[in-house]
């Protein structure tokens, strides 16, 4: 049971962390509205699941909504700030978060809701591990997401351009790549990742106004993995999920929330750029 819950939590953490990473990679901006996107997407998934009983359809609708929301926020709010201090864009994301939080409270009144998931059964795996269908689906979706992202970055032209832009935006622009378009798509994908994570949180646990708090732990995951490394989120998510669950089970449950930050301090002391992050060059003076 413990192993299963660690793996599921790690999967969700990784997914949440990947949203930070994808956006940071493309635009060097930390999106502090991530937690609120998760909350909003979660509530939307709840409402849609009531309207459209078939989970896959409502999930797809949520993902599309998040993608469009991400692209729009980038195009309307973030892009005009290009060329100014990155800090103002980051503060802007905080403001967007507050705004979205208000929308969540206004529309859904902050009640705790569970996303209904029709398929319920148990799988027995060797080693006396039992996985519920929900946990099984969660792991499947997370694996599929990472596989798709890997193929996207590696083989599609937009993915390659995204990597190129992340490494050297100036050269990318000179090679005719529209870096705004690329960043906009990255924001869309980052938001969609948040939406996917919200759906998984909704079927595994429940959606509430405080669900965003889990995104704080995911921020830590992104930092530990390296802010510009999608692959880094996987080991980082496992480390955080395992230590957190083990602490809650065998030590004091109240320590659970503090554990990610303690781990973060320890990792960043020795690897300031995260486990798999690239050292950023200092600007030429």
């Amino acid at each position: 049971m413990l192993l299963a819950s660690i793996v599921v939590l790690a999967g969700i953490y990784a997914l949440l962390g990947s949203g930070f990473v994808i956006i940071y990679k493309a635009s060097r901006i930390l999106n502090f509205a991530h937690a609120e996107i998760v909350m909003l997407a979660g509530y939307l998934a709840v409402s849609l699941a009531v309207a459209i009983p078939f989970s896959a359809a409502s999930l797809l609708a949520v993902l599309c909504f998040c993608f469009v929301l991400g692209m729009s926020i980038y195009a309307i709010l973030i892009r005009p700030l290009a060329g100014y201090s990155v800090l103002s864009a980051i503060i802007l994301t905080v403001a967007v978060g507050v705004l979205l939080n208000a929308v969540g409270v206004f529309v859904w009144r902050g009640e705790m809701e569970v996303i209904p998931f029709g398929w319920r059964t148990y799988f027995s795996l060797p080693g006396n591990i039992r996985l519920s269908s929900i946990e099984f689906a969660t792991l499947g979706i997370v694996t599929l997401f990472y596989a798709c992202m890997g193929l996207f970055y590696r083989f599609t032209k937009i993915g390659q351009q995204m990597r190129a832009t992340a490494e050297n935006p100036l050269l990318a622009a000179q090679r005719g790549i529209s870096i705004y378009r690329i960043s906009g798509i990255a924001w869309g994908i980052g938001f969609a990742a948040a939406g996917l994570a919200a759906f998984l949180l909704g079927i595994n646990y429940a959606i509430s106004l405080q669900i965003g708090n889990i995104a704080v732990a995911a921020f830590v995951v992104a930092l530990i993995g390296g802010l510009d490394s999608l692959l880094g989120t996987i080991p980082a998510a496992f480390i955080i999920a395992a230590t957190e669950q083990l602490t809650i089970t065998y030590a004091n449950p109240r320590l659970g929330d503090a554990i990610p930050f303690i781990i973060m301090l320890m990792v960043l002391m020795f690897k300031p750029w995260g486990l798999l992050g690239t050292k950023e060059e200092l600007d030429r003076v």
Partner: protein
Amino acid sequence: MKSDSNKLLEVTKLEVVYNHVSTAIQGVSFNICEGQIFAIIGGNGAGKTTTLRAISGFLNSDNAVITDGEIKIRDRSINMLKPQDITRQTGIVLVPERNKVFETLTVQENLAVPTSIGKRAKETIQNIYTYFPSLYERRKSLAGLLSGGERQMLAIGQAMLCSPELLLIDELSLGLSPVMVEALFEILLKIKADFGLSILLVEQNAMEALSIAEYAAVMENGMIVLAGTPEKLMAHEDVKEFYLGIRGKEKKRYKDVKQYSRTRRWWG
């Protein structure tokens, strides 16, 4: 210089100021004709790179602005264009001095990212490999693992895929062995002939640059102080002394060179 009818790039009285205070170049004027190799030579801090970055639209990212003058390509002013639009709309493509390739992408991916190659991408890339066979051998390795010469080849190859009309090359010879520089210049001449390009070279290596250029200018302290055909410049006493290292009768040490004051010959 050739007649005005085939003028490709026209830079008039260009002035660039960094951080609102420091003037990097002033009154820089020159023309590049179609199919011409134009070289700008000069020491560190002479304003060569600034001139290139002004033409390629990169100044904004350096916190610099064009405060005076105009850059025109085919009679169209490009002062206000963004870097990606300059590449797409005008055919001016820059090969920068540093960070010239995407190091985390493979050679093949580096050649695939430019947007202008459309449906016939494979053939076009294959065509580039014919000029740089050693790149083809290393097409699957990361660009960050290439040698300096191979990186330069990749950067030129990548620039070629942006369908350039005017190639701007910043310090082609920097950090490369003389043999490699010669080989690169040879390939460049071949590319120029095959594609009908114009090339603007910015070089500290005056000897190499003057050997392939058809017209050249010498920059000092942000101004063009001399210009003419390579033969004319190579015969010039100051150029010989300061850029080609050919000394006159009396031997001078570096200290003396610095104190030696020249009369500026203004051009343009």
